[in-house]
Each structure stands twice: as C-alpha cells, then as structure tokens.
C-alpha cells in the first residue's frame, strides 16, 4: 500500500490473479484490499482468483465477510475465487465463532487452489473439486 513493506501483493498469472496477504490486516486495510483486488479483476479480465490468507492471524466476522464479498463481486465480474492457506487453528476459531467462508470454496494451498481453478474455469461449473468450509 502506501509506505513500508507491502501488506498484500496481487500477482497476475495468465488469466488468474494470485493475491497474498502478508500480515494481519485491520478492517480498513481489508476493505482497501477488497477494492484493489476487484479493480484488478476488471482490469485484467481475470477468470480465476486465488486469495492466500496463510499469514492472517485470525479470520473474524469482518474478515470472513470481506472474503465472501470479494468472491461474490468477482463472480459478478465472471471470475471464480478460491481461498487458500486458512490455518487449522484459524479454521477452528471460525467454526466456533459461527462464521464460515459460506459458499466460497477453499483449498489447502496454492497448488490445490490452482488445480481447483483449472478444473472449474476450463471445464465448466460442474467439476467442483474444492471443499467449502462451513
């Protein structure tokens, strides 16, 4: 973002965008991330988006809601989103909190996320291999 080391990086990989969160984000940084990502999806006409949240310390109600928003807005722009890297303890706390990523698919890591997008984006919406955290 403005100064210091980047909080988030968004890389373009063909028709995919790979967004990595590098550190804990506060709510306004989370919103900024959402805006930047949606903007780039439009700019590059991306078909798939991978969001790597392995560095997030928690995914509370706001964080989970933001990820769902991103996925929904990306879908409206024709892109499929998959969340990767949710740590087991973070996932546990999300479930205990009563939050989930809802209908947003999740995958273990970047490799699985790419495989998921590859199947879904190229063979149509029926071939869903990722699992949804609920």
């Amino acid at each position: 973002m403005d100064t210091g080391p980047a909080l988030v990086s968004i890389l373009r990989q063909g028709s995919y965008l790979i967004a990595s969160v590098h550190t804990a984000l506060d709510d306004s940084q989370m919103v900024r991330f959402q805006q930047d990502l949606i903007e780039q999806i439009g700019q590059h006409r991306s078909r798939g988006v991978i969001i790597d949240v392995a560095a997030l310390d928690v995914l509370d109600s706001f964080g989970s809601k933001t990820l769902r928003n991103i996925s929904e807005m990306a879908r409206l722009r024709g892109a499929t989103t998959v969340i990767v890297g949710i740590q087991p303890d973070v996932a546990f706390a999300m479930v205990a909190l009563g939050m989930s990523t809802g209908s947003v698919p999740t995958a273990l890591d970047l490799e699985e996320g790419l495989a998921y997008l590859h199947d879904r984006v190229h063979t149509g919406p029926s071939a869903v291999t990722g699992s949804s955290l609920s």
Partner: protein
Amino acid sequence: MSAGQPADALSESGSQSDVAALVPVIRRFVHSRVSNEAVADDIVQETLVRMLAAAGRVEPGMVEPYAIITARNLIASMWKEQERHRRNQHRIVDLRSPESPDEGLLQQEDKGAVAEALERLSERDRRTLMAHEVAGQDTQSLAGELGVTAGAVAAQLNRSRARLRVEYLLALEPGTALTDRCRPVLFALSGGDRRRQREVDAARHLLECDLCEKLSQPLLERGQRSDGEVRIRIRADADIVLARQTAREVAARLEFSRTDLTVIATAVSEIARNVVRFTDGGEVVVELLEEPRRGVRIVARDTGPGIADVEAALVDGYSTYHGLGLGLPGARRLMDEFAVVSEMGRGTTVTMTKWRQEG
C-alpha cells in the same frame, strides 16, 4: 586565552563596555560546563552583573580569573539547588524531575504545587508526613507519639503520599473543574489499591473523564502495576489488531494451545470491533488469572450509547446494534465465561474468560 587584554581594558576604566569584553571568555567557560543553552546564558549574564558590581574592587590583571571563579561558583550553586530540589521532590512527591528546557520555570511552579498539595492534607497527615520525610523521624517513634502501631503509621504515610501525589498533580492544573468522583478515583489509582479502584469503578471513570485520564498516566507509571495486566486503548481499526495480538501474546505466557490462542484473539477482535464501530472509544484490558485456575480474562469497556436489551444482543441475528448481533454471541461461543453489563447512555462492559486446559 588572551588573559591580558580584557583585564587591562577593565582596569583602565571599569566601564560596562570593558566588562562586555569578558563575554567571550565567560561564555566559553560556562557553555563547556552547562549543556542547557538558556541556563548557560543566564549564568553568563549573572556573572557579568557581578563583575560590574565588583569592578572597582578587583585587582588589575585579576579580572579574568575573578570572572571565571564567579561563573564557577554560580554553576556550582545551580547544581546544588537542582540536586536539593530533586532530592526533596523524590522524597515528598516522588515524580520524575522535569527535563524540559524551561526547567527553572517548572521548578518554581513545582514548589508552589507542593506547598498547595501539602495544604490540602489534614493537619495530622501533614505533620506526620513532614516529620517522617523531612525531619527523618522513623515510624516507630512516630507510632509512640501518636499512640498507634508502627504498621498503622506506615499505612497512614502511604495514604498521605498517595493523596499528596494527587493533590500535587491537581495543583498543576489550576482552574480545572473536578467532578465528585475525580478525587476518590485518583486516590485509588495513586495508592495502587486494586480493590478500592474496583469499588469506585476507576477504569470506567478514566474513560469518561479527560482530566483523570491525563493525570492517571504519571500516577500509574509509579504505582505498583501488575505485570500480568495489559491495557490497550481502543479508538481506531488498527487498535483492534493491536488488542487481539496483545491478548494472544499475554495468553501465550500461560502456554495456551495455538488453537486456544487463536480463539482468544478472535474473540478479542470481535468485542474490540464493537468498541470502534459503535462507541466513542474504550479500552481492552487483558489480565492473567491464577485463581481459581489459570486463565486469561479480557475486559472491554466503552463509553458508548449502551445496549438496551443485553439478552437480545446475545442472540444471533440481533440487528438493532449492528455488528454486535454477530460479535457478542460469537465471542461468547469462543470463550468459557462471558458477561455483559450495559448502562444506557454510559456504556458497556464485556468481561470474558478463557481457562487453561490443564494436564
């Protein structure tokens, strides 16, 4: 040093302009010993004034050495005064000595404030305190005079010191309006008395009263603060992250599992967000517990509008207090104990505890 020239000049006429010729020499001497520019300039001026007054009496050729000796004496007496002041301040008020450039001015202000603060103590408290702190009389002999135990004298001295610190700080804020809650809260903080602080609800008063919040800083800095308690002011988004990371760090001292640490951090994130979104601000206090079991207690206080129906707010989907609908029931599910106390127009206090799973 060109010793001869200014001395000759002075001995010839003793006029002011001749004394002025000494300025570079005196300046060099004083500034090499006194780091504070303003104080050094004052000493140079004072030396010159004394040289003028003594001009007729100083032997020719001795003017410059005389000026140097005068300046050195002035510096020495300044140190002595400062040292005495620092010692007294430590003994009676025990506040850090000011280090700002206008130290001299602060010292003046200080003396007035200490005198005013002493005036506000009861006759008995003041006499006992002065006898002990200034005259050096021990508690045993004071106890004999007062007809009480030495322990009672020590307790009285502690109370008096706590009050004196408060009155001293208040004397430095003349013309500030106090509520009737201010003094009891400040006394409790100054004495480091946790039970009394809870009785007068000091934490909430600090959120509501700017004056006490400001004065609490110097009072708490020197009070006995528990290592197992950390306080985070909550005002903006970034404070939510700070609060949950701090809670995680503090709880980690009890070797909670990684999952429990994340659960605690998530719960803190939820309740801290309510403070940022729906109130003017507040605080999150993270405290380690040893009794009845080891655990971590988190208290979030705000000065918000309050929650009309706390029971309803603890149910999922409650929406009149946006966000809390998710925040409170979610945080409650994450923690072992959870309590909400809310007063309309004053604010909300959420207290939640996670116990350490032993074994």
